[in-house]
């Protein structure tokens, strides 16, 4: 077998292509980077072949390929969904989705849970464990935001510039008129969760929005009267603990047929429906504190 010295072998060719790619990348993206030194070539060792994707990238074709694949994916997804919809039972008709579970909820829900609002009875009595998980998801989210965005020492101030509305005349005057109604509405929705549409999440969201508006109109000094970091910690942890302990008690007594001192009361009264009212309050406090905490973290990067 003879070797032609003028014709480069496969390994040398690959090394050249790799060098070109490195130069191209360095030119394109990082002007201050250290100069790229070519790797010492050892002729006996087979150089690693450049991948298919890298060669595509060199020609700029990977983007086109990506878009073609994305268009095909989207068309397939949309047509599959539309076909599924056309095969479903008609909208607004009593389908077989109203199965025994739903009938059970509607027929005996008020009797078993004491809540007039069946949805509230489902989420805080039949599926209370699920709602506890939701509250913990919110708590974990605000903890993640705290870990990611918090600045502890004042010197490392890298927060992005933010449009500050504190002291704005229109906003502060409007808020002075509106804030009592916002808070009263939030508390109403919170406390009537078992009687009317609403409940812990919606009432807590209204309360949290009210605190956020207060803080954006009057600054953190005014809103600090409601929520500081200390109250945030105490309120969220104690509310979640109360939820755990109360619901464990009800589940334990209910599963073992023991007598529970928490009665259902008369459905329709404000003090009825067992633990649903206190659990609504606990969930609402967690939601309000979480919303305000997330807002503070994004705005000021500290409490």
């Amino acid at each position: 077998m003879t070797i032609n010295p003028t014709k480069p072998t496969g390994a040398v060719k690959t090394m050249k292509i790799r060098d070109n790619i490195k130069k191209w990348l360095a030119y394109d993206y990082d002007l201050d980077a250290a100069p790229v030194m070519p790797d010492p070539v050892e002729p006996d060792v087979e150089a690693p072949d450049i991948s298919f994707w890298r060669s595509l990238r060199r020609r700029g074709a990977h983007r086109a390929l990506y878009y073609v694949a994305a268009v095909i994916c989207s068309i397939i997804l949309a047509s599959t969904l539309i076909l599924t919809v056309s095969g479903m039972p008609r909208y607004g008709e009593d389908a077989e989705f109203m199965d025994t579970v739903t009938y059970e909820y509607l027929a005996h829900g008020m009797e078993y849970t004491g809540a007039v609002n069946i949805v509230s009875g489902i989420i805080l009595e039949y599926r209370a464990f699920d709602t506890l998980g939701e509250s913990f998801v919110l708590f974990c989210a605000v903890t993640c935001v705290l870990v990611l965005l918090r600045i502890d020492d004042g010197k490392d101030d890298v927060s992005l510039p933010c449009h500050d509305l504190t002291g704005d005349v229109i906003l502060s005057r409007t808020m002075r008129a509106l804030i009592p109604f916002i808070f009263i509405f939030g508390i109403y929705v919170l406390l009537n969760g078992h009687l009317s549409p609403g409940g812990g999440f919606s009432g807590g969201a209204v309360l949290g929005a009210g605190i956020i508006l207060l803080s954006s109109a009057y600054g953190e000094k005014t809103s600090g009267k409601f929520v500081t970091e200390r109250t945030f910690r105490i309120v969220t942890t104690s509310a979640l603990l109360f939820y755990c302990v109360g619901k464990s008690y009800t589940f334990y007594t209910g599963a073992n047929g023991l007598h529970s001192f928490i009665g259902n009361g008369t459905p329709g009264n404000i003090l009825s429906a067992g633990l649903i009212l206190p659990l609504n309050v606990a969930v609402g406090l967690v939601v309000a504190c979480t919303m305000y905490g997330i807002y503070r973290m994004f705005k000021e990067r500290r409490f």
Partner: protein
Amino acid sequence: MGNLIYNYEEAVALILFSVGFVTLLFHRNMIRKLIGMNIMDSGIYLFLASMGYIYDRRAPIVEGGDTNPVNYINPVPASLVLTGIVVSVSVTAVMLSLAVRLYERYHTLNLDEIYAMSRRRSEHR
């Protein structure tokens, strides 16, 4: 096409879902990807809410001790939507804070540029 004309509400919900999916695929900006994900969530909520609706029936709040299930719509999708909303709010908050951190490090929100820069840095290390 079967019941597509009657199921217009579900169809609109799933078109909304597809719009969010396309936004997720075709934009390189992370904030736009986040908005696309929220549009997908809204499509899912609309789909669930329309699945639970039944003509000529009331919301599942008992009035006057009337516990006949024939008079009320399906309450289960409403409670599922509640779960979905909470989870989507949490996910949005975490993703936005991650986007803020990435912007502080790379001074851009374009995912291609972030990817290229991070690869350059790891090659020089």
